[in-house]
């Protein structure tokens, strides 16, 4: 008998015969925050993320340009801002080890937790979001969902091969509970609210 068959036989022999129906899980969205964007920002900052407020000048990308002004290697997967490392030409993820800033767009965000979802389609090469020293994420404010129950109804989890909620930067407090940003992955995560080109919220 194969190991698979043995395990299944053992489960069937030992499985409790108790009646345990599968309950439906409610969406728990009866008490939404007044502003999803403000709630998202507050949650993000609690988790160590940075929210790039649009400057008074109206030049939304100014805070991003300021951040990357002195960076040697910038890898961008978004049309809004150009980098100097073309992710389309990356053959091995290891080639991204020297990236200072990665700039990507999130599929959507979650107000409850301050998370942004980055899928394989958003990242092109998944490792860029972990090997870069810093990560900047563009987010369309129209793409913020109230909570994780709504988030897990999204198609990214049914169609794509990889998707990851990023909630603030890579962090650890494994030594005496002292919080460190930049454990093994990015040292900072900044979110810039910026509608997608052609998004209804730009009109």
């Amino acid at each position: 008998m194969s190991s698979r068959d043995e395990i299944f036989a053992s489960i069937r022999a030992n499985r409790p015969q108790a009646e345990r129906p599968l309950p439906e899980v409610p969406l728990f969205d009866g008490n939404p925050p007044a502003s999803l964007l403000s709630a998202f920002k507050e949650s993000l900052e609690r988790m160590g993320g940075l929210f790039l407020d649009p400057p008074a000048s109206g030049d939304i990308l100014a805070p991003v340009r300021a951040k990357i002004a002195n960076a040697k290697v910038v890898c961008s997967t978004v049309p809004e801002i150009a980098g100097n490392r073309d992710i389309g030409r990356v053959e091995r993820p290891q080639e991204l080890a020297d990236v200072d800033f990665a700039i990507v767009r999130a599929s959507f965000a979650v107000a409850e937790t301050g998370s942004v979802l980055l899928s394989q389609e958003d990242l092109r090469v998944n490792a860029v979001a972990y090997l870069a020293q810093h990560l900047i994420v563009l987010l369309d404010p129209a793409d913020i969902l109230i909570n994780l129950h709504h988030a897990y109804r999204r198609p990214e989890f049914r169609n794509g091969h990889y998707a990851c909620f990023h909630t603030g930067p890579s962090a650890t407090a494994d030594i005496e509970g002292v919080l460190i940003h930049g454990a093994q992955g990015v040292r900072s995560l900044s979110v810039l609210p910026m509608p997608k080109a052609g998004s209804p919220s730009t009109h």
Partner: protein
Amino acid sequence: MSTQPEPAHVTGGTLHPELLAGDDRDAIYRNGKRLDHAEGTSKPLRAEPEQQPRGAKVHGNRPIDQAEAAARFIAAPEHEKMHDERLWDLRQKRDREMHGIPEWEELRSLASAIKEHTLTHLDEYLGQFEANAQANGIHVHWARDAAEHNHIVHGILNDHGAKSLIKSKSMLTEECGFRHYMASVGIEVIETDLGERIQQLDNENPSHVVVPAVHKLRTDVAQVFAKTIGTDPDNSDVHYLAEAERESNRPLILAADAGMTGCNFAVAETGSVVVCTNEGNADLSANVPKLHIVSVGIEKIIPRLDDLALFVRLLSRSALGSPITQYTSHFRGPRQGGEMHIVLVDNGRSARLGLGEFWTSLKCIRCGACMNTCPVYRRSGGLSYGATYSGPIGLIIDPTFNAHKYSNLPFASTLNGSCSNVCPVKINIHEQIYAWRRELVKRHEVPFVKKAAMKAAGELLSRPAAYRAAIGAADVALAHLPRFVIYNGLNAWGKHREVPHPPKQTFHGWYQANRGGKP
């Protein structure tokens, strides 16, 4: 005057105020607020350097003497206090999160019901998971036990000529003795979680399922790193130590031939595995090398994505008092040009399903909340249990692996029930601990002194009148007995603690005198 410490609420939730650091220079502030996400403490703590106490002495199959190792941990007061304080802090952060969610108790009830449903239909959901994962291009393997798991992984690595493996933390691989096995076949394993890496470099097991090096002080870590990665032995600055570890790990991550992760949840309807980390190290392990291997215990299955939402909301809040881990990663198939394998491991789980009183321990999602709240665990350290799983959940899981070797563990509990109260999937942990004591007595795995005391107690407890007489006599005796009678070697309760002052009157006596005559 009582010698008991002030209750926590009097001192602002601090058990050991002497640990409060005068300055908070290690902390990160955002918009004037002190950040305490991930495993971060809610307040600055500082301990004095002190030699690290080591864990339980393991002698083959001999029963682990948890009390002996705990006594050595308690004899290192800086370690004991820091451990107690940090875990209690996690517990308080967990309470803070719980109070922020009105539906918390509903979430726990649903989580428990979903887990029980899944476990009673485990064969169906495992079959569904396997079919969906295979349809997504994932290779699925089955391992009856730890040895088979290790052989399968070794085989996959051999097929790829892989000699080095980066991995994220996985209690299942600890259970399988995976690192020892890999060392014996010449494959280098590099743990990528900071706490787990500290433990690997120090040749010690993780002492906690979520914070593996929580029993160590910064000065202990400085010594380990000085010996292994060449840091300055006199520099125990935490930022310096963490940065040095990051820099020493990075080249190993880039050069690794293969990557491995554990799995927090395996979703049957999509065939995906979900991994939660704070460091992003699972994503590095899975996304940098071409080959990704996932070790999954068969009880990790949940039916639907709707269920996943519930469990993700509960996990990190229960574990760390943080709304979510920094990274929640969903792997549904290999990335382009990559290869993905999943090894589904039984290792005693299907047999546990058949243990009438104990099968619900399989609901566990490994959050560690029961450990953080347990007064015995907080004061004895996870390594004192001498087993893969420590704390309350360990007491009810470890004996299923070896009832003789872990026969003392179910006695390392006050049965106060706090573990059951914080468990996000409502496992009746303290009742199972008690049931294990009974089971071990039945199997003759309990030493004579403990058994004789329990037998006497059992007879007493079964006869109310005799019990009342005995309690009255005991209270009189406790008030008048010389110290050596109470604090002798046979009474484990007298060790390292003051027995509370006996009441002047028993409750029953008071009730009879004051209310006894009323209808």
